[in-house]
């Protein structure tokens, strides 16, 4: 029985039916399934599949967005139970913003939404964020990753400036840095000394997970 319910939940996420996703979560919990099991067996396979379909060009941007919304709604439904059970659905803390001089925020907002759907706690610094503001946020918070986007060739150098500022403020070891945006490449990310580059929102989630994993490993070694 529970398998069928999980499949329906996965389908609801794939189809971006957020009302179905929420009511199926309720149904599953009422039947005695744990919130964690609903999340891991019903919801996560759905959002992962959405990401895969998007990355191979079978799913289009609006489908990514609506599935992300369904995921967020379902997770919000389960969250009190997840927290009560002690096993918080928390992938990590992510700080995000667009670089100084760049006010294009559509891509950043999509990445932000996909991260939230995958259990990240996201703090959004907004657009046109100067390096000082980034450094203050990193210094005062306990974020795992800072992700920034630059949509224009002319604002790309600001990503470099941001990394330099983080380094100069002695904060580089405190955080992993990701960079993205239409003109940005892996080569550019390497050149400015970022830890990761993602070409789209789906990849951003995967890179975030792998960077966070590395953070943990390093902590264990230390």
């Amino acid at each position: 029985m529970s398998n069928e319910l999980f499949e329906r939940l996965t389908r609801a996420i794939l189809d971006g039916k957020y009302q179905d996703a929420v009511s199926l979560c309720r149904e599953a919990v009422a039947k005695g399934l744990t919130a964690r099991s609903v999340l891991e067996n019903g919801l996560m396979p759905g959002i992962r599949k959405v990401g895969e379909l998007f990355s191979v060009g079978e799913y289009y941007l609006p489908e990514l967005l609506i599935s992300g919304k369904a995921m967020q709604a379902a997770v919000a439904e389960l969250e009190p139970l997840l927290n009560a059970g002690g096993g918080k659905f928390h992938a990590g803390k992510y700080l995000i913003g667009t670089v100084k001089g760049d006010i294009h925020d559509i891509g950043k907002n999509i990445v932000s939404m996909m991260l939230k759907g995958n259990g990240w706690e996201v703090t959004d610094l907004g657009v046109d964020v100067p390096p000082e503001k980034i450094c203050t946020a990193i210094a005062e918070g306990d974020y795992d990753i800072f992700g920034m986007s630059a949509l224009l060739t002319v604002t790309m150098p600001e990503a470099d400036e941001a990394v330099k500022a983080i380094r100069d403020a002695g904060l580089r070891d405190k955080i992993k840095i990701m960079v993205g945006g239409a003109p940005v490449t892996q080569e550019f990310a390497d050149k400015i000394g970022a830890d990761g580059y993602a070409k789209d929102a789906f990849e951003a989630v995967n890179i975030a997970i792998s960077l966070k994993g590395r953070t943990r490993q390093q902590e264990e070694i230390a």
Partner: protein
Amino acid sequence: MIIIGENINSSRRQIAEAIASGNREYIQNEAKAQSDAGADYIDVNAAAFMEKEAECLKWIIEAVQEVTDLPLCIDSPDPKVIGKVITLVKKPPMINSITLEPSRLNSILPLVIDYGATVIGLCQTRNEMGRTAAEKVEIAGRLVEKVTSAGIGIESLYIDPLVFPVGADSNSACATLDAIEEIMKQFQGVHTVCGLTNVSHGLPNRKLVNRTFLAEAIARGLDAAILDPADKQLLGALRAALMLMGKDEYCMGYIKAFRKGLLA
């Protein structure tokens, strides 16, 4: 309808390669093809070359002017670059672009006056882009005010209400269309101009979306567009839309473009 040919843009890989390798012929062929397809201005952009931008743009401008008499649309994020290259143009150019950002305005408006240029004004302040129709119209009003109070005629201003991906927000294209209509109504004599490709970001069959958007925008009063004039389906939609809006007397623009084989 003013058609600004968008193809000579350094964000396109082939163009960037042609610039980097000094392939003058490639750039000139692009200019000729756009001119033959009915462009009114040839946009020239070398922004991807960053610190070498002015140098590259000069090279492009010289190459393009050897093969066409069309005026240029000087496209640069850097007002200093525009100031450096504008001395080379043979005809009054269009400048792409200003926003409400004061430093940009203050350095570009004098160039508009000195060179008898026209100018594209984005519905954008220093730190915000107009998203709703109301925001776009409000910013457009302030652009009109800045330009005309500098002593430039309103007919020299092309307002770009900004186009966002409809795939990220279902109401965004509608906001742009509403803004076009309102701007053309409120500010008599001003022009409106759009780029088209952003509207279809993240969607399948993008060109269909682009040309349908263009037709709808023309129906709302759009009178200039930045596009690929060699795209015959796009030009077909443009000529047909103008004709249907009563902006093509005796349908001769449409018929002539058809006879030249420019429509599909």
